[in-house]
């Protein structure tokens, strides 16, 4: 279980560019839930994910992962609990290293690294088997440099790397946004498949409202650094993009009302 409560974070505090990215964001994700997160640009989606992974530290609030308070921990100390796939296919893997070396890095995520050989013989069968499940023919290319792979292939391997060792939560940061539609569909399908098979707890940020409703078991919308609505179960079933838009408009309308109240 992962629980974020009342997260607040302002970038460039005290400067003309002051930007409150998180304004009291609270969200609890239960074991085995697959939450999709939507929101307009600047809603705080990426900042929220960065706060969960430790790339940015929040000004106030609390982040609990499996009963451990990780609020003040840097990224590398959370990595054992938090797995992540980035938006940029180049960011999640190391192009200068071979496929097997990338996987060897991932198999030790969040664990101590010693002086024994990184790519161990006993790993290779596991690597081949997981790569074969991608059906990209990568299982015979373990020694190839990561840089030789296409964006879609690299993103598929990133996904594999994130699920190679257990984690409390898998963060997916618009991980299909930089891919062409066909590859994006493939990676998305792979995502749901891996999450279902391994019963992972996941949080997926997406730009596509359609995607947000099609996959996962719960949808959360962020606006101006807060959760504006949170739907799951029956309420979510049969919901369409236009309903979501309606909810969003309604929410925005309320925001305007609030502002006018303040100004008045």
């Amino acid at each position, binding site marked *: 279980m992962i629980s974020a409560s009342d997260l607040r974070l302002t970038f460039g505090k005290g400067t003309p560019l002051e930007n409150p990215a998180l304004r009291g964001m609270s969200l609890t994700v239960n074991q085995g839930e697959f939450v999709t997160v939507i929101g307009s640009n600047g809603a705080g989606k990426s900042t929220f994910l960065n706060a969960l992974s430790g790339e940015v530290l929040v000004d106030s609030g609390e982040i609990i992962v499996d009963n451990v308070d990780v609020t003040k921990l840097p990224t*590398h100390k959370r990595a054992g609990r938090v797995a992540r796939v980035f938006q940029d296919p180049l960011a999640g893997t190391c192009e200068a290293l071979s496929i097997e070396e990338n996987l*060897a890095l991932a198999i*030790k995520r969040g664990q101590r690294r010693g002086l024994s050989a990184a790519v161990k013989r006993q790993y290779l069968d596991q690597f081949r088997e997981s790569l074969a499940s991608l059906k990209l023919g990568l299982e015979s290319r373990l020694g190839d440099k990561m840089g030789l792979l296409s964006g879609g292939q690299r993103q598929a391997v990133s996904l594999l790397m994130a699920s190679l060792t257990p984690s409390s939560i898998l963060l997916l940061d618009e991980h299909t946004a930089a891919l062409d539609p066909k590859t994006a569909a493939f990676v998305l399908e792979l995502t749901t498949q891996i999450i279902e098979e391994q019963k992972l707890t996941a949080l997926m940020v997406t730009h596509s409202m359609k995607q947000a409703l099609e996959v996962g078991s719960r949808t959360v919308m962020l606006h101006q650094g807060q959760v504006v609505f949170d739907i799951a179960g029956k309420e979510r079933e049969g919901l369409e993009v236009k309903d979501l838009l309606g909810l969003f408009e309604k929410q925005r309308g309320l925001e305007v009302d609030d502002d006018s109240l303040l100004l008045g």
Partner: protein
Amino acid sequence: MLSEIAFYGAIETGLIYGLVAFGIYISFRVLDFPDLTVDGSFPLGAAVAAVLIIGGWNPWIATGAAVLAGMAAGAVTALLNVKLKILNLLASILTMIALYSVNLRIMGRPNVALLTEETVLTPWYNLDLAYHQVPVLLFIVVAVVALILLWRFMKSETGLAMRATGANPRMARAQGIATGAMIVLGVALSNGLVGLAGALFAQSQGAADVTMGVGVIVIGLASLIGGEAVITPSTVVRALLACVFGAIIYRLAIAFALNADVLGLQAQDLNLITAVLVTLAIVLPGVRSSVIGKFTRSKA
């Protein structure tokens, strides 16, 4: 032409600068951390080894102390960068400048002679070899051992974490790698190797001098870049071999340039020649591929 003594001399210094090139490979290539500390850690290694040898220490222990001193210098540079957020290049310049004073303090004077002292080379002179061949033999052993150890390290879990830190720090952090600690470890390791080179250089040349570090970074880079032009560094072991061969080729090129009377060059032109060779080493691979490109196009 080159005399036999000049030839072996070039190989000998080439092997020592191969160690420097290993260090520069770790900082510049593996960690992507432009580190100029080496101009200070090379004479630091020499100074520490020389002073301890004169103080009656076993030369190998003195050399080991030089490695530790170099590692400490590297760690200071890395910590200035990681903890105090000083730009890596500037952090290394600060340490380099500081080391000039430190080296003078260690030696107590600008240079220390070792000519009459027992060094790591002394027992090897009992071998049935010409005087100028002995250092070459010993330094080949040292370079090969260093190469194998570094190769094994780069293939280890920690070594792989270090390579990921330089290539993609964000991904490295997401995999649970403490990138700051990796930078400290790597830059320390790099300068430890340079300290070793300094200690061996002082013992083979018979003196440690506070100015002997000037331009070490350029020579090391020349060796690295030149070596990479000859041996494509597609794997770790090839990259390490490129360091050693680059350094030897570089020293031979220098020796030829200085020995060729036609050119009229003298010892004091060394730094000028170095700068020209580095420029050529950087530019030539591009020229070569464009020439080859033209050649293959005309054939097709």
